């Protein structure tokens, strides 16, 4: 933010025709920067020769707010970071505080958490797919995606009354018991979803224009991805098999069988394929989970006032967009001393410049789309 000029590595770039570069300001009000991202592009004709992301238009000081709220009071705030995957945010926060308190949520709560979080992953990926396709000019997948996402939001609404910023989980377990037909609803959704994914794939996967617009665009090599700390589908599409659900299992993920899809080249098309496969795997996890939801309490024994012992904890989960980490320091009072959040979108966004260089303006929106950023999470 501080530096308002685009930095050039090495020599002054030469344009193709020897003309001046054109500086194009994209955002913060732009149809396809997915919120209030501002990108300053330096163009030679339509070719990008430099770019700079400017963030902070949605900064609300969430981490600072945490220091003035009790542990429970802060829980709804995390929903507002990645507002299209609120359930995942809540899971990460609740588990981090549980780790700090040294309590564990009961098995029943953990399974229900897993189901809802996986549904949220599907919903988040559906939103990504719809908007990504819309950025590339395919209008119709957006509405198909929203049709399915609506089903998931209905399940959330039935469960906790809210659709977007759900605050579905509590520290120590769940507040609400699963409603009677939760399993049936999830099963019905999963059954229908299988054929629905084929709808999108028919429109996109083998489409020549789609291939032309995504193959070879925004290549991120595995070393580069690791170097900037990219996680989630962005990392996996580059060929690195790293998924916190398998690497450091949390909730009830160790009980279920699922595959981690990885890409090979790390281009936009690979990221598309990886996310499509992840949706299918999430569906399988949901189907396994509803088969056997253990009975028992849904809340561990935690006090009304939470006073974790002094200490610090880092807990990360695999959110739909990557590794979502919470680093919480307790000083023994009712309020956290410090909460630091590691948002996947913020870290993945760093890859933008090296992905966009040398491509055309039209590819820039494809690259922003494929990174799947949510500005609420980037700016916090």
């Amino acid at each position, binding site marked *: 933010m501080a530096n308002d000029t685009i930095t050039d590595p090495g020599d002054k770039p030469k344009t193709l025709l020897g003309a001046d570069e*054109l500086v194009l300001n994209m955002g913060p009000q732009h149809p396809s920067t997915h919120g209030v991202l501002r990108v300053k592009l330096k163009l030679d004709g339509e070719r990008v020769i430099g770019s700079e992301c400017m963030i902070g238009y949605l900064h609300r000081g969430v981490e600072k707010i945490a220091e003035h709220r009790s542990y429970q009071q802060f829980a709804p705030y995390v929903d507002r970071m990645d507002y299209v995957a609120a359930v995942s945010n809540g899971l990460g926060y609740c588990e981090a505080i549980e780790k700090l308190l040294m309590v564990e949520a009961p098995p029943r709560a953990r399974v229900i958490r897993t189901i809802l979080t996986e549904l949220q992953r599907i919903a988040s990926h559906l939103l990504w797919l719809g908007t990504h396709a819309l950025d*590339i*000019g395919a*209008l119709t997948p957006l*509405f198909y995606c929203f049709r399915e996402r609506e089903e998931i939001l209905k399940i959330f609404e039935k469960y906790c009354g809210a659709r977007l910023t759900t605050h579905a989980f509590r520290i120590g377990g769940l507040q609400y018991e699963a409603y009677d037909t939760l399993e049936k609803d999830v099963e019905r959704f999963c059954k229908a979803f299988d054929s629905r994914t084929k709808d999108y794939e028919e429109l996109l996967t083998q489409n020549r224009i789609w291939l*032309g*617009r995504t193959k*070879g665009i925004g290549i991120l090599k595995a070393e580069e991805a690791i170097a900037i700390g990219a996680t989630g589908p962005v990392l996996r599409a580059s060929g690195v098999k790293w998924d916190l659900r398998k690497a450091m299992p949390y909730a009830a993920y160790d009980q279920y069988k699922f595959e981690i899809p990885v890409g090979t080249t790390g281009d936009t098309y690979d990221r598309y394929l990886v996310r499509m496969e992840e949706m299918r795997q999430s569906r399988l996890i949901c189907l396994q989970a509803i088969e056997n939801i253990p009975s028992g309490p849904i809340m561990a024994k935690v006090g009304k006032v939470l006073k974790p012992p002094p200490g610090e904890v880092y807990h990360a989960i695999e959110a739909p967009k990557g590794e979502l980490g919470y680093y919480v320091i307790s000083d023994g009072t009712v309020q956290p001393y410090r909460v630091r959040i590691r948002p996947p979108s913020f870290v993945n966004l760093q890859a933008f410049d090296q992905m966009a260089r*040398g491509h055309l303006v039209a590819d820039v929106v494809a690259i922003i789309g494929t990174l799947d950023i949510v500005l609420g999470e980037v700016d916090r």
Partner: protein
Amino acid sequence: MQAVIQATIEFVKQYWAPLVCSVAIVAILPLVAGYIVLVERKIMADMQARLGPMRVGPHGLLQPIADAVKLLIKEDIIPEEADKLVFWLAPVLSVAAALLAMAGLAIGPAFQIAKDINIGILFVVGISAMGIFGIVLGGWASNSHYSLIGALRSSAQLVSYETAAGMALVCGLLFAGSLNITSIVQAQYDQGIWFGLLAPVAFFTYLVASIAETNRAPFDLPEAESELVAGYMTEFSGFRWSLYFLAEYTNMIVVASVATTLFLGGWLRPFPRTTWLNFLDFLAPLAMIGVGVYCLVRTPKQPSRVQQIFMLAVAGLCFVVALVLVVPLVVPLFNRSLAAAVKPFHDGILGAFWFILKVSLYIYFFMWLRFTLPRYRFDQLMRLGWHFLIPLSIINVLVIGIAMIAGQYFNLTGWALLLTTVPASILALIVALFILASEQKSEPQKTSAAPDSYA
């Protein structure tokens, strides 16, 4: 003074019919364009599992009027740094070119403003290509980067695709042997076959090129909303914007009409020479009666009284139109002596029906593509144009010409001409694909990798 008035009266006496028609076009076309937008939104909604506009009027039928009123009463903004004169001129130029092109077109044998221009189709194509000046000047005058890029893309696109479209038209004109619109349709009647069937590759080329020319998806790069906000229209709002919009939809009608005239038999019904298919003439009134009956049946099921009355009115309108369509068909059956008197009406009304039907189908195809396909990237668009469509259309003109000569040699006419033109078209396609493949082989895709100096 007296002489001027005298001359004016003489002029009006002579040309009153085209004058009335042109006033009608200027008055009615915005409404037609508005309803094309509504139909487009409804079709889009249907393909996307939703309802589309439903609020203004029953099933959103008054939405275009509400939109038009909204656009007219909006504040008229001219950016501070814009070139004001050019900014004012550009949308007018765009819409004037589009409307002027309509003048040369014939909607059925009876409705044509500029009757029998000997260079008919050339006039239409030339004038409609003038519309690009509106886009380029508008993009330039806005003094905005997005507008400028949009305008640049638009001019490059038009230059590339106008060539392919022109070559495709040449193919059709080879068969017709005339540029006059009436003669072109007459030639298709004489041959008994649409030129689109004789020159399928040319028709395909024109189809693709016309989508690119009218800036429709998947070639809507000049206004690519997800990249350039609104392209050349970014700084335009209110009435000026609606003029661009009107120009875009009028251009769609123009290219659809040109394609219909040249490749789809104009106002002729399918298989115009086959007499046992004469019953197809009754299709028009029957379709209208069908729609009317449907509205009548649905009337009691409408939720509010206003909607019931509206449905009844629509049904009544359908029946009236059906009556108008059916009278010239039925009268000659009962009274032979009236047949000659009714014939112009018969031809005019049915011709208009078939023409509008074909134009609608052509535009429907445009819409269908828009909702199905993602957008091309600019370099891909240029490659498609220069490496495939232009070679294809040029080769096609050559081989179709040879096929025609061969056809004359063997005395083939009408459907028999397919014997020579179909192999010729296939040959053109193969050669063009071969050129495309060899070019791709010799020149690996540079666009995906960054040039060294920028790396």
